[in-house]
């Protein structure tokens, strides 16, 4: 599979390394040349020696997308730090380049949900965090936090 990842931050670079390790062809596009260094964290050889591709450019620039190989991509991942950029470029990948699988990282839960319903595959880390936190609180409650443990009760007891 040929995987194109736009936005090579902590998330993008980790996914890129994992996909390369699993034997896929991986190309990364990022505005910041420095993000190349992040890709190589923990690697014994350079990103290119391991078969990876890295292009400097903006995701909204068609030339940059094409240089990064979007026309042959099987999977497109939009993981820049901007929701709006991710939503726009993943629609470009979907509609103009007809990439079979397109995934966008969207931090805003409301929009992640709406675009998901419009046929865009969105991943919402905020939603994951909300669910985990809620789950953790419920679990604590389930472990038998008694009314005596509430702050009000503690204050009462301390008097």
């Amino acid at each position, binding site marked *: 599979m040929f995987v194109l990842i736009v936005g090579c931050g902590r998330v993008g670079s980790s996914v890129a390394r994992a996909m390369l390790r699993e034997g896929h062809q991986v190309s990364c596009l990022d505005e910041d040349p420095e993000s190349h260094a992040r890709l190589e964290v923990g690697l014994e050889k350079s990103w290119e020696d391991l078969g990876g591709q890295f292009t400097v450019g903006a995701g*909204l620039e068609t030339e940059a997308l094409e240089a990064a190989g979007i026309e042959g991509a099987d999977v497109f991942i939009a993981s820049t730090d901007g*929701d709006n950029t991710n939503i*726009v470029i993943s*629609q*470009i990948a979907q509609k103009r380049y007809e990439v079979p699988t397109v995934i966008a990282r969207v931090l805003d839960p409301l*929009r992640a949900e*709406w675009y998901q319903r419009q046929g865009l595959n969105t991943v919402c880390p905020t939603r994951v965090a909300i669910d985990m936190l809620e789950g953790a609180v419920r679990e604590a409650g389930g472990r038998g936090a008694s009314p005596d443990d509430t702050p009000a009760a503690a204050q009462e007891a301390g008097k």
Partner: protein
Amino acid sequence: MYIIVVGAGKVGWNLARELLDKGHEVTLIESDRRRYLTVEQELEHNVSYGDASELWVLERAGIQRADMVIAVTGDDEDNMLICQVAKEKYLVDQIIARVNNPRNRRHFDLLGIKPSVSATDLILRLLEHEVPEYGLVHLLDLQEEQLEIIEMLLGKDSAVTGRRVGDLQMPEGSLLISVLREGKGFVPSADTVLEEGDEILAVLDPGKEEDLKVLFGPEGDGAGGSDES
């Protein structure tokens, strides 16, 4: 009409003021706190603070009952998505988006954001307007209708000066609609004789520009489309 304007920069602020003067109901949304406070001194409750990329901010501004949404922030992605959501989620009748970088225009088209307005493009067209002779100036593209309207200045060596409009072999799919002569415009008849310095307007199917350039261009520079023997 109820109009939501997003982005209280120079464009948005002046636009909101004009629309209010014309008696429309307007909400201007601005995401920069300091800018919001400045604009709020003048426009008061007509300005709302928030990031219009977020759905709840648009809903708080009453997007469900808006007749028109105009996105004029300095960020093309914002403008695209605000208009996309307005049109497709909230079914707002009319949207207008500002294009900051003309290179992004095709992305607006791809997402169906129409009309989009680019100041850079407008200025470029005005510049083109200053250097006409035989150069075509695109005045209007009617994309839905698949037509365009162009303007052209006839130089003294044009193949058609001194000829009757009725004798011109206009390319198929094109029509001469008006002649501007000495500051006055008129609709030509078959007997109108074209003169040097005339500015002509033509409506045409896309892709007919070259044929028209050949016909109206300098004589001998491509046969001139003459039917004389």
